[in-house]
Structures are given as structure tokens and as C-alpha cells.
């Protein structure tokens, strides 16, 4: 009962006239271009060809950090996953892409164009499920199996970044990738669409 009394007292005892907030979130300054600093952090949706599966589209999330402007170095990580089936198997590959990157960037208006080389490895987690195995009563390794493997890998990405608001940029990147699986070179591709923060 006393709570109700407090609420009523606040309503009638502390009257205020409603007015607009002075601290507006958006202003003309918000959209004004200003060059960012050396540090850039980005994250977004990642797509690509699975590192070790012969088919499919891997999707997931990626993030990276770089330091520098014209010449930048940094690190990137992305986790993408793809599930595909054959008659006998349903195979899920989860790829954790870990790269050390070096990039060449050039400002162009509000945007930045760049070319980024990434070297590192892709940690592949494979999960295989024997189709119809549960119905047939299979258990253990006959039913499902999993394995990890680290593959040496490299990416070459073209980067387009657009300063949108304050320190925030819209960033897209993509390009070919290579990894080594069972001693053989495999070609693929990667792409990412996301945002970057460059204070």
C-alpha cells in the first residue's frame, strides 16, 4: 500500500513539463566525414567455401583488428560452419579461421579501398553422422564421429570501407583463399559484410 502512495506522491509532488531532450543522438556532425585513427576493429557476417568440404556454403561470424592506415597489420578470426549430406553421411564442418594480416589501404572520398593478405591456419572440426544410423540402432563410431585438423591457409581480400557515421564504417571484403589439405592445395573464397569502428 505504501508503494502506491509513493508513486502517487511522485506523480503529483514532482510535476515536470515535458520537453525534447537537448542531447540529440543525431546531428549534422554525425554524418560529417572525419578520418579515423590507426586502430580499427571490425566484425560482421562471414561467408565462404568450406576449408575441407568439397561442397557447400559456410556461414558464420568474423572479426578483426588492425593497426595502421596506409600500411596496416592486424589479426582476424572467423568461425563459419557448413552442413552437407551424401547418401551415407551428414557432415558438418566448423572452420575457425585464424589469420595474421597485413593490408595496404588507400582513402578515396568517404571510403577506403584496401588489399589484405592473411596468413595463418584454419582449425576444422568435423562431425559426421551416419544417415539412418539411429533408426538402424547403430551406436558409437559407426553412428557418428568427429575430428579436428589444423590446415595452413592464406587469404587475399579486397576491402571496401565506407565511413557512415562518426567512427563507424560499413565494411565489406572478399577474395580467394587457399588451404592445404592432405598435402594438396585447395582453393576457395571468403567474404565478410560488417561494420568497423575506427576512433
Amino acid at each position: 500500500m505504501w508503494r502506491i502512495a509513493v508513486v502517487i506522491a511522485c506523480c503529483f509532488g514532482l510535476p515536470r513539463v515535458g520537453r525534447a531532450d537537448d542531447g540529440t543522438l543525431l546531428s549534422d556532425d554525425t554524418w560529417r566525414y572525419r578520418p579515423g585513427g590507426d586502430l580499427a576493429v571490425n566484425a560482421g557476417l562471414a561467408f565462404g567455401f568450406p576449408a575441407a568440404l568439397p561442397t557447400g556454403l559456410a556461414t558464420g561470424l568474423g572479426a578483426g583488428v588492425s593497426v595502421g592506415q596506409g600500411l596496416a597489420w592486424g589479426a582476424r578470426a572467423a568461425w563459419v560452419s557448413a552442413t552437407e549430406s551424401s547418401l551415407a553421411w551428414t557432415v558438418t564442418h566448423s572452420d575457425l579461421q585464424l589469420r595474421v594480416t597485413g593490408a595496404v589501404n588507400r582513402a578515396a572520398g568517404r571510403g577506403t579501398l584496401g588489399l589484405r593478405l592473411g596468413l595463418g591456419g584454419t582449425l576444422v572440426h568435423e562431425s559426421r553422422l551416419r544417415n539412418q544410423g539411429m533408426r538402424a540402432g547403430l551406436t558409437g563410431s559407426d553412428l557418428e564421429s568427429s575430428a579436428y585438423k589444423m590446415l595452413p591457409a592464406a587469404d587475399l581480400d579486397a576491402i571496401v570501407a565506407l565511413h557512415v557515421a562518426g567512427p563507424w564504417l560499413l565494411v565489406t571484403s572478399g577474395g580467394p583463399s587457399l588451404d592445404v589439405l592432405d598435402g594438396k592445395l585447395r582453393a576457395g573464397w571468403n567474404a565478410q559484410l560488417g561494420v568497423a569502428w575506427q576512433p
Partner: protein
Amino acid sequence: MKRAVVVLALAGCGDLSGFGGAVPPLATVRAEVAGDFAAVRLPGKAPALRVALVWGAQWLTEPLCIRPPDDASAAAAIAAGCRDPFGFVPARVAVDAPLEADGSATLSLFDLPGADVMVGDVTARVAYASVVVYDDLDGNGTLSLGQPNRLNGRELGPPDTAPPAADTVYAASFVTMTEPDTRLAFREGAFNLGAAFYPRSGCGDPLPSFSLVSAGGFSAAEAIAAQLRGELPKEPPGTCREETTDAPVALTYRRPAELHEVACEELRTDSSIRYREPPSDQPDMTRRTMACAKIPDFGTGTASGTIQLVVSGRSDDACIGLTHYVLRGCRNDPMCALPQWDITATPPTWWPCPVSAVGQ
């Protein structure tokens, strides 16, 4: 840091298989054949014995085959043209393997039985298979299922010609419910004995998924008596077994004449009959048994004593069956209101039966 390096190093030792590598079978069945093959072997070229796993069909015999015959000629035609109503009827060959010199074979199943060979709904359904040893006479590497050799009718629809059984069966684990049998069962969900699919009343339920089930078999008289009581015939006590597929399936060579129906499939499994209009020229009745028989109506009087001519297959056919001729009727119903043919006024000269209906 060191720990991360160790984890990554170990991770690198894994082996990715993708879609490759060996595919484990969903079930493996071992067959062991015993007996004197030479004693039962048919003359001919050197046999190429193989073992097949054959899923069974749900099949109902036609009414004429289970009704008391009208006379001796009808009884002879039934004996020559009706298959064992308790027998195993094949639906599909699932897998095939050569029989080794030591009389063993391993059948690896990589596919589950399809819904068309499983009886019951998705919460309780079962499929049964027979393990069959045969001579692959046509050399196609699989058991070729035959069909009854029925006579053609007059111009209505495509002829019902069927391939003869090309292979000779020498052993089967499940021939008929009136003999001891061992079957591969695939059970999904619960088990519904009331479905009466190759029933094993008195035995335990098949194990979930794949299992081998055995029963001692009941007599035809016991089956009829149980049916009259509204029950399923009981398997003899102590003859039932339900075990995993780790156990081998034991088979014994038998004379092919005792087993030919194991490789004979049926186009119609619901006891319905395809009636034919008799052709104007007499069909070749060589080595066939025929009889004039009333169309069975189980006492309802709907058939009004209408007579049909039933003709068995040839005595040397691998698969037996009956051809049904009527002077008036439709393909699926001889008593249809609007007959597809009516030649009662002008029956063929060779027609051996009464033209008009006879009293019941």
C-alpha cells in the same frame, strides 16, 4: 600460451574424412548353409550360388483359394494355381552376396527397408526378410523375382505377361509360417501384434531396429481354428527366439520344388482379382488345369451363381497363379453394373462353362 600451442598441435593430428572413408553397414547378416547340395541340385551348368536378403510383402490370397472348392475340377485348379496362403511373398531384394566355398555369406545392409515393405504406422511398424540361397542362372548378380504365367484376355488393357522366375532357389530361412522359420526383422517404434503381419503369436516382440526372430511354425488347421476363434495362431512353445544380428542365420539345402514360391512376387497383394474377357480363339491350355467355378461371394448372394473359368499356370512354371475368365464383367469386378464386356449371348466356341449363372 604453451597450452594453446599443445592444443593446436594435437588438433592438427586429426583426420578429416568428409564424405569419404568406409561406410559402416546399417546391419550385417551372416548366413551359414548346410546340407547336401548335390542331392538337391538340378541338372545343368555349374551353379553360381548366391545369397539374397528379400523383404516380404503383405499379401492376401484370393477368395477362391481359401473357399471350399465347388467340385473336384475346381479343387484341382486351386491346387495347381493357388500359392500357399501362409507362405512368404517377396517384395524386394535388398542385398545380395556370393556364397563362399565354406557355405557362408555376409550380407551387409546399407539401406533401411522402405515404407512400402513395412507394416504399421510410424509409431509401430515392422518389416520381415527371408535369407535366400539361389543359383544365379541368369547371371545378373541378384535374385530375379518371377511372376505367375497368366493367360491373356481379349484386347482390354495390356497383356499380363510376366517374366518367369529365372533363378533357382535352394534354401530359404523363411518359406512359410507353417514351417520353422528365421527372419530378419526391422522394427521401428512399438510392436503391434494385431497388425498380423506374418504373425508370431506367442513369441516375444522383435528387438528394436534389426534383429533375427525365429518361430516353430503352426499348422494350417491350427491357423484356421484360431481364425474362427478370432485369434492369431500360436507358435509352439519353446520355438521362439529373438536375438541380435550377431547370430548367424542357419539354412539347409532343399529341393527347389519346395521353395520356388519364395522367388515369386505378386502384382496384386490385396486379394483382388483381374478378370479377363475370354479371347475368341482358345488359349493354349497345354499343361494347364482349368475349372468352371462359381465366383465366391461368401454367402452374400451378390455373385448370383455367376460362373468363371479359372485356369492355372503351366505345371512346369516356377510361379503359380490363376487366370480368371468371365463372359460378362469388368476388370476388377465381374458383377459390375456397367460391364466392360458382355459376350454371354455370343460366347467363344471353346468356352467350356455354363453361359448362365447356376443355382447356389
